[in-house]
């Protein structure tokens, strides 16, 4: 994870009318490559060595901790969501009490995390009511909200990288409106359980599928933030995708992790492409901008 000290504000601002940019307080990231940005390879295809899916496996520590309690029903994707929040707290050197309560908004983003539960439900005959609830994407952030006591604004966006950019924009909106004191943007993608299905659609994805779970902690900032469509640009997000592999909604969080890890000083620009359309989110250092 980034060596940036807790509480630092690598922030961004920009052009769109009126929307204040948030500062990044912390980021937790797990991926099929390992924990944090330091584990990300230089080139996903090479590092994958022919593997189609880089699995997160199961978070053993969480498995053990929750054995026997209500989380025994929690799916692998729920456990990784919890693990990414814990990694975020560690990155921010914060206790879980720091995010508890009405003041924390939670924005969950995923393209396909529900696929594993859907398949298990369909192929299991559909007779297990408790399992059915886990086919709802909203249940992944719900497990996080239950575990960490989050009772603030909440929403779920479905889609690939642009959906995460929309999620960050929405979190910025909630912060700018004063609807919350901090906002978490959570993204989780798993692929292992449906590897055979994704193999049928190989031409739809460009590289190895890399499971990931990330959580971004945002707080109010001073600059502005710009979200704009970028037409059908194939280049959008290509660099981080080539480096990390296909992580769907987690891609922008991986890009932020990489940006922080290299201690970049340039303004952060996030790009995402999905279903033939591209989106760009531009942040600039709000404090620099404010200071002229």
């Amino acid at each position, binding site marked *: 994870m980034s060596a940036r000290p807790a509480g630092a504000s690598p922030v961004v601002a920009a052009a*769109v009318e009126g929307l204040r940019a948030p500062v990044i307080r912390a980021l937790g990231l797990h991926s099929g490559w390992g924990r944090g940005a330091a584990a990300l390879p230089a080139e996903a295809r090479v590092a994958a060595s022919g593997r189609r899916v880089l699995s997160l496996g199961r978070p053993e520590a969480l498995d053990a901790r929750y054995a026997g309690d209500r989380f025994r029903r929690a799916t692998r994707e729920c456990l990784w969501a919890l693990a990414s929040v814990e990694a975020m707290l560690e990155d921010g050197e914060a206790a879980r009490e720091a995010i508890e309560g009405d003041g924390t908004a939670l924005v969950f983003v995923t393209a396909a995390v529900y696929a594993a539960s859907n398949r298990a439900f369909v192929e299991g005959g559909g007779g297990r009511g408790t399992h059915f609830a886990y086919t709802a994407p909203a249940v992944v952030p719900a497990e996080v909200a239950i575990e960490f006591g989050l009772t603030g604004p909440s929403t779920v966006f479905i*889609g690939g990288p642009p959906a995460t950019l929309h999620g960050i924009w929405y979190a910025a909106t909630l912060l700018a409106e004063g609807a919350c004191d901090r906002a978490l943007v959570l993204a989780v993608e798993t692929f292992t359980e449906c590897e055979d299905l994704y193999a049928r659609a190989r031409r739809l994805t460009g590289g190895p599928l890399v499971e990931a779970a990330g959580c971004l902690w945002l707080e109010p900032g001073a600059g502005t933030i710009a979200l704009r*469509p970028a037409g059908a640009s194939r280049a959008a997000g290509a660099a981080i995708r080539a480096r990390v592999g296909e992580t769907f909604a987690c891609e922008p969080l991986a890009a932020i992790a990489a940006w922080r890890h290299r201690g970049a000083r340039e303004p952060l620009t996030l790009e995402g492409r999905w279903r033939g359309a591209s989106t760009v989110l531009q942040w600039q250092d709000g404090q620099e901008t404010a200071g002229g």
Partner: protein
Amino acid sequence: MSARGRIALVAAGVATPIGQDVDAFWSSLLTGVDGISTIEHFPVADLRVGRGGEIKKLTRVKDWSGVSDCRATRLLISAADELAAHAGLRPLPAAPTRVAVVVGTALGGVAEGERALAGDRRARRLRGGLYDSPAHNLARWLGARGPVITVSTACASGATAIGVGADLLRQGLADAVVAGGYDALSRFVMRGFDALRSLTRDQVRPFDRRRSGLLLGEAGALVLLRRDGEAGPRRLGTLLGHASVGDGAHISAPHPEGRGLERAIRMAMAQAGVTPADLDFVSAHGTGTLLNDRIETAVLKRVLGARAPAVPVNSIKPMLGHTMGAAATLEAIMCLLAGRHGQIPPTRHLEEPDPECDLDYVPGAARAARPRLSLSTSLGFGGQNAALVLEAAP
């Protein structure tokens, strides 16, 4: 709320089991048409309950060429076809890159995923099984090239989508937003709710002491959102406030005291700048489950205070079933139609009130009243709660 913050709902389009356009939907609500029937589109003989609000045939769109055969997509496009006629979407009211699509769904095109798992090896089945697929199909059909956002706050999705769409307009990220919700009936969802024992073998009876569960339905519902000053005088009404809040209590049940719902209502009212004294009507989530109706009643009593007994509250779910992602959008449209036409649709099948549910739920027949300010509430799996505050056009 400032004029900049007010968002106009210009027009609507719907596809429901009780009407495939807004006029038919409204007239069915007033007359109490029963949209519940035995499901015919897929086998249900092995289920405890095989009834629901099924649309037997989508009749509005005559030519489906070039449109995915995904049922969820077709529900959305049926609704969009009516919206296009009412709101003048041909040509689009703004540059295509300035027209956004924001739709809510609990299950997306999940039936496409079922087909893929059942052996349909075409890549488009897999792609269609992703929950954001119908929204992109809709955007393509409309020719919209602005942000395409799929919201999935379970059965509160249709409210959250309207709220997110309003925020896109307020932030200047779009000049027109097609917003709403949809969900199709499928074996997947019927089996799921059947396994949860949530479906009733009786009628859906919100707030009735005999209530024993919900029935599902399918629908598509869309509205065109514009900034207040750009919408022109002809409109359904105005969105004054919205909020979507998590309650962090349980994955499939509301907070036992409804704290999340209460927060959502209070936040939406604060954004709207209204007090309980201003509210004329509440469209309740009103699923007809034991827990929901009791909790929702308690929350409304806390929020409305002394006014609670005087504010009419209804649930339209007995007539068309719980249409999941579409429900909150349909209910928002209903609130604004009530204000336009001076009638509040009844809560059907409410005959023996539960003593714990002691508000005015408009039992029996439609009531002559012209609600100007309405509150619409929604709840969903994952502890999701949403509230909209709406003002009917004068």
